[in-house]
């Protein structure tokens, strides 16, 4: 979609000043291998489903066509890996992302058990204080207010059956 980094470079500053640097051919090659593996696995699965014949297409016909195409595209990607520079390096900032994902996984794990209020407040606090480096006061106020608003919206107004404590 859109991000400030999409300003074309001739408009002044360099385009990617606040993004990690571009990744080399190795990253592209690994990507291509993953794509080929995905295509090959899907192709095996599709063949096991039964491909039928053109006159009588089976459940595996279409998946087989698509996964074969995917495998070929993956091979093409591998062949072009050297010339591509559209990927980003995984740098230390990537750790931030994995921590963020971890917090959401934890949210999913407990929401069905103890309701959404406490996990929601904790998740917001964590994102604000740890990931966003906001002040302690801002973090507490925003997370509490947001949880109350979400409760009012989803439980109060929309009467959704989201698991909740109160």
């Amino acid at each position, binding site marked *: *979609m*859109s*991000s*400030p980094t*999409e*300003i*074309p*470079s001739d*408009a002044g500053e360099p385009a990617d000043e*606040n993004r*990690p640097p571009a*990744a080399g051919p190795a990253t592209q090659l690994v*990507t291509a291998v993953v794509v080929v593996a995905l295509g090959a696995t899907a192709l095996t699965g599709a063949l096991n*489903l039964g491909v039928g*014949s*053109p*006159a*009588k*297409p089976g*459940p*595996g016909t*279409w*998946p087989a066509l*698509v*996964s074969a*195409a*995917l495998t070929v*595209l993956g091979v*093409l*990607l591998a062949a072009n890996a050297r010339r*591509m520079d*559209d*990927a980003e390096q*995984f740098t230390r900032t*990537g750790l931030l*992302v994995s921590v*963020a*994902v971890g917090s*959401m996984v934890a*949210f*999913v794990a407990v*929401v*069905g058990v103890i309701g*959404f209020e406490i996990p929601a407040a904790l*998740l*917001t606090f964590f*994102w*604000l204080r740890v*990931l*966003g*480096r*906001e002040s302690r006061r801002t973090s507490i106020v925003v*997370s509490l207010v947001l949880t109350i608003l*979400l409760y009012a919206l*989803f439980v109060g107004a*929309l009467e*959704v*059956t*989201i*698991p909740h404590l109160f």
Partner: protein
Amino acid sequence: MSPVLDGFAVVLEPVNLLYCLVGVLIGMLVGVLPGLGPAATIAILLPITLGIEPVTAIIMVAGIFYGAQYGGTVTSVLLRLPGEASSVVTVFDGHALARQGRAGTALGIAAIGSFIGGTLSVIALTLVAPVVAEFALDFGPPEYTLLALLGILLVATVSSGGKLKALIAAAIGLLLATVGRDGFTSTERFTFGSLSLADGLDFVPIAMGLFGLGEILYTLEERHRVVHAPTTVANVWPSRTDLRQSSGAIGRGGVLGFLLGILPGGGAVLASLAAYALEKRRSRHPERFGHGAVEGVAAPETANNAAATSSFIPLLSLGIPANATMAVIFGALLIQGITPGPQLVTEHPELFWGVVNSMYLGNILLLIMSIPLVGLFVRILRIRPSILAPITVLITLIGAYTVNNSVFDIGLVVFFGVIGYLMKKLGFDPGPLVLAFVLGSLLETALRRSLLMFDGDPGGFVTRPISGTLLVLFLAVALAPAVRTAWPNRKKPFDPSKETV
């Protein structure tokens, strides 16, 4: 003419008026905020549309889409920070004008151009869409097979990432669409024995994850610039000279935008780039561009609104979404139990004309509101992304639950959020994946029906006139790059994205 007039009656119902206003306001807001685009916003709001009437829901969702085209301008002009990809070119001359103290002129011209582009496009849409739909009523499975394939190919061809990666994303989208019970034989495919997967993957968590969460995770890695915005914007009304200077640009931008919007893969981004390139090329003083030429603001801003509106034509008349945002709106319609296609005009005239006519109203609302609200938008920009991110995340996670009342869906959103992040990181545009996923089951069904029809002979696609033509088009688009590499000395074809940057 009476269904058209009934459509106005639908728009004037208080609920619809309200949601139209809500839609364009949200649209302008996300247009102003860099980061979340209209596709992501609509995806995140999909659960909320469940509780509303179909017409009302789509009126709101459409408002978000074209409203975002207005909002993106404000930050381009004032801050050199395009809120939307479709306002990127506005930065060049818009911000140059702002530095000369003429920010008001730039915003005024943009608002007027947007209004004219949007409104002309609605009028053209009113005339064109029913005709296309009637023509498409004769389409059978072979035509739909090729139409869907052509749509996916075109979207992949013009997508922001590399073409190869866009095609890979599309193929993965098509594969994901096959997960679940096969509609013909009830065989379970790629479900790995999971009951939750037996009914197939739902569109909502995929769109919410790839567009919404993926985008948020991606921006987590960004160091944010401090925003310094001018506090007041003076003299919004453009002078008569400005208007005279930009009238041609507005006219050409509108027509170009309308045409590019209809094309699959076209849409607002391409239209704004092409319109800017056209004006620069036509101008007798191209050196003025980039230093505050009013036409450089008028043309792309008119074009992106015209394109945003006209990209509804393939969706509402053929049932083929032309870009990623239209794919999400397609999903919104499906959730409401409405399959977009040529029957839409005749079977749901109130929906069709209600939505189309709401765009007149929406454009008027945007014209009236966009200038007075500039101050407010600038203040909203001061809200730090570190505060906005957790709010968006929670709305997304809880919203995902509400669609099917299932915690599994929240897990899916997180999963696709990670996929979306990795895709953006590795240079894949998630747009083609979502679009291909949406079209996947239609495409497979159409292909299998065609093969049954033709008794397994693929030659049947060639002998039917419309599907034959579509096949030729498909091959032309698919093979064009290969031909270009074979004759590298030939003159390069017009490429708007390279023209302007």
